[in-house]
């Protein structure tokens, strides 16, 4: 009889379609008057010989029944949960409660990129005033009063003696006055020239750099700037140094890179030359060292400077510098 019970249970289990059915089935088998409970009770009437075997059989069936009921029960619960979860479904194709991050101004992004490269080469970062004395902006940098070199920079004046700095170079002088060699710093910041058109804004940004020590050579200047330009524009960038003039460096150089827009074959941006002017540089003029009290017999050094707007315009193919200062959110969000 016990042998048939399993079969019977399986048949009845098959027809269970609701938790109520399952409850009834459990009562029928495991309840006080259930088949298995009755079978156990009947065990006492079996012969002592049969008893162990029969007992084991009944127990096996009981475990079998319990396991199946538990698993069916779990299945019902699962189904129920599924139903509940489905009821709580949302349209996941709706956009998220989106809080877009803001964007850093492209000029500051490029400025950071440049600064970071030099900081990794061991340069510290120095700052100086934007409203500057004529002495630091010009005299100390070997631009004498009434010298045509001053024409290279249209100057905003606060008074005869105070100007808006026309370049970040005065930070060179202030930085050297503050410390003894070795010196290795860059100075990023805003500069001003009274000029406004498609390629000029009255305020723009520069990064100045200075390195002074014993045995610093023009060859080192080339080394540092090539390393920088390869980091900034890619390792295959062609770099060209050619003679130029800045009052505070001698020898002076203009540094060009192969045009990143046409690859050197010539285009509108590089004025068909295949080259883009990117940096001014040179060996610190001994006249500047004298102004800060550095011994020109012992120390040599180099300085360089670059315009951030120009680099940003090349990097992002922007053709009108004024876009940077209109601050149109549609422009700023692109970077």
């Amino acid at each position: 009889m016990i042998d048939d019970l399993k079969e019977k249970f399986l048949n009845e289990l098959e027809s269970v379609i609701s938790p109520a059915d399952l409850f009834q089935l459990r009562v029928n088998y495991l309840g006080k008057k259930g088949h298995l409970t009755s079978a156990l009770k009947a065990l006492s009437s079996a012969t002592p010989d049969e008893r162990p075997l029969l007992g084991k059989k009944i127990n096996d069936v009981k475990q079998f029944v319990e396991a199946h009921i538990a698993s069916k029960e779990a299945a019902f619960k699962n189904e129920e949960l599924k139903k509940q979860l489905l009821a709580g479904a949302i349209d996941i194709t709706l956009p998220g409660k989106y809080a877009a991050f803001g964007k850093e101004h492209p000029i500051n992004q490029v400025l950071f990129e440049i600064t970071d490269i030099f900081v990794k080469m061991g340069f510290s970062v120095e700052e100086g005033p934007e409203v500057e004395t004529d002495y630091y902006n010009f005299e100390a940098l070997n631009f004498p009063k009434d010298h045509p070199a001053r024409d290279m920079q249209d100057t905003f004046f606060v008074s005869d003696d105070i100007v808006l700095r026309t370049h970040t170079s005065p930070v060179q002088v202030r930085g050297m006055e503050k410390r003894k060699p070795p010196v290795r710093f860059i100075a990023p910041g805003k500069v001003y020239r009274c000029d406004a058109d498609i390629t000029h804004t009255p305020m723009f940004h520069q990064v100045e750099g200075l390195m002074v020590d014993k045995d610093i050579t023009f060859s080192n200047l080339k080394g540092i700037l090539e390393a920088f330009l390869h980091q900034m524009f890619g390792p295959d960038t062609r770099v060209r140094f050619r003679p130029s003039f800045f009052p505070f460096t001698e020898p002076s150089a203009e540094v060009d890179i192969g045009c990143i827009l046409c690859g050197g074959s010539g285009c509108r941006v590089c004025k068909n030359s295949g080259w883009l002017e990117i940096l001014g540089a040179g060996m610190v003029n001994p006249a500047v060292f004298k102004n800060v009290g550095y011994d020109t017999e012992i120390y040599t050094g180099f300085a360089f400077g670059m315009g951030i707007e120009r680099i940003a315009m090349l990097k992002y193919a922007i053709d009108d510098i004024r876009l940077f200062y209109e601050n149109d959110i549609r422009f700023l969000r692109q970077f």
Partner: protein
Amino acid sequence: MRASLAWLREMVPGSESDVDTAHRLTMLGLEVEGIEKVEGDTVFEINVTPNRPDCLSIIGIARELSAALGTPLNFPEHEVNGNTGELDFNIDILNPALCRRYAGRIVKGLKIGPSPDWLKLRLEKSGIRSINNVVDVTNYVLIELGHPLHAFDLGTIKGHRIQVGTSGDVKGKAERLRFRTLDGLERELLSDALLIWDAERPIAIAGIMGGGETEVSDSTTDIFIESAWFDPVSVRRTAKATGLKTEASFRFERGTDIKMLKKALDRAAFLMHEIAGGKVYGKIDIYPGQLPPAKIIISAEKINSVLGLDLPETQIIRYLNDLGFVVEEGKGCLNITPPAYRVDVQGGADIIEEIARTYGYERIPAVLPMASVGIETQDNSQKAFSESLLKELKESFLKSGFTEVINYSFMGDQDLDLLGIDRSDLRHLLKVPIKNPLRLEDTYMRTMLVPALIRNIVYNVSHDNRAFKLFEISRVFSGSKDEKLPEHKYHFAAALYKEKTRSLYKDDTNDFFVVKGIIEALLEALKIRDYSFGRSVEPFLHPGQSADLFISGSKTGFVGALSPVIVERLDIKAHGPSIVLAEFDIDFLRPYAMQVIKYRPLPKYPGSERDTALVVDESIASSKIVALLKEFDSDLIEDITLFDVYKGKNIPDGKKSIAFSIRYRAADRTLTDDDVETLHNRIVGFICEKTNGQVRS
């Protein structure tokens, strides 16, 4: 400087292509910025740097090419015949400091007329308009040899005399003169302007422009040609003061070749005779300011050590000789005399550049320096802290959806007036004026950032951008009585603009709290403890929805809704937009930002919370509750959180309900319910008493 290749080739024969020559010039430091084909010739547009006035001429550029190519230079001929006739003419240099040399020639009986075509064409290629044969010749020689000349109508020069000096030199008393230049304009001259005079009156501004009364005209037959050296600084000062910039002044103020002036004079006389006829008379040449040639001493070793090269001395000497420098070998050094036309070469560094240029910048190897390792100084670590503060500030607003803007550092009175800022406000009083602004609206350096952000809002809304958040970190400037330079302070400013928009997700937080919340989070992140907000006194903010920020009791910024009165004044086509502005002084925060972090042990015993809602007068600020709690001063109070402020139904008019939760905790034991209950009741009682409030039931 525009230079014709055909003209250059006359002086330096060669067959290099124009593109190759352009590249060669560029790599010598004479950057060719443009190449133009003109009637079978090529014209280079060369950017001549201010240190190389010698290259503001065909001969100067030819000299560079000649040295680079190793081709000898053909100097243009200037045979002057007919040095005849007694001259009844005197030249007096009254100021030899400003005029070291003055030479002249008289040509009589020439015929003024148009120039021959070849001359016109060369001038045209050089960018100079043809006037008449005499004037054209002076301009031709200017371009060819780089020396400015001036031709006077001899008949108009009074007393057969030329004097060179300032008004003080000539009249014994310095005075400002008015003088009519040949462009027909009357000019006011500085009293120290160097002038050319005849026996009675000034007839030219030395080195800049001649006078209208002695100008060569169609009826002129006799002329006096001037070729002189004038002091660069003096010419520049006068040119700037009179606003006159001429081909002549451009060269004189950069420095002219004192030796060349004689050749230029002869060349001009020769060409005038050829072209306009007439008889050339003897030369007068007064040269009181002869200086010994400058000598530069430098060793080959020094040159090599600066460049990172190892050139033999013989090579260095050869380079210099090719460039026209005279080199004598001294003991372990070179004694170098630059040619007179190289006014820029004054010291060893200039010689080093000549060697680098000739050797070729391209050929100098690029080598990274052997650098000593720096040590971070105290100064630097302070700076690093400031940088991290700025970074934190920037990050917190970027992540909150604010986009960074950069505005010009300028402002005008209209900016502050729009905001109704009083004229006695420091932001008016301390503004730093610019003497030569590009626009009236940009007359001052900014004393605050918010006006520019308001402009950004107007611009963006007019371009149909309807919801955005902006911030800027820039310096503001305020004049100082004690310091020469104005104070530079970093400010932070933010602007939030939003129109009533339909949105999938509801969030009706007043935008004031959005901006204030970021500022509070930032202050907490910076571990600035002693901050507070009070009703703002800024005239441009909504009086009911704005706050001033105080750090340690000092006002350092504000946050608030832009006053509807001001919004009305803006050119914004939107109905009732939400505009919240904030600005504060970053430099002021720095010292309060806690730099040293000390660990506090975590609590060992559980805490316990109690909530209470009080009904108080509407006028009681929520911060009052917090302040009272502080005043109560119990060690067991750990924290207070405000979680509801309510007005309306079930609350009497003029009252509001404030709900808060206080967390209690003891450091050394678990608080019993009784402990907490008793303490909480005492605190609520205290607050009710002080605020005249009642527990909301």
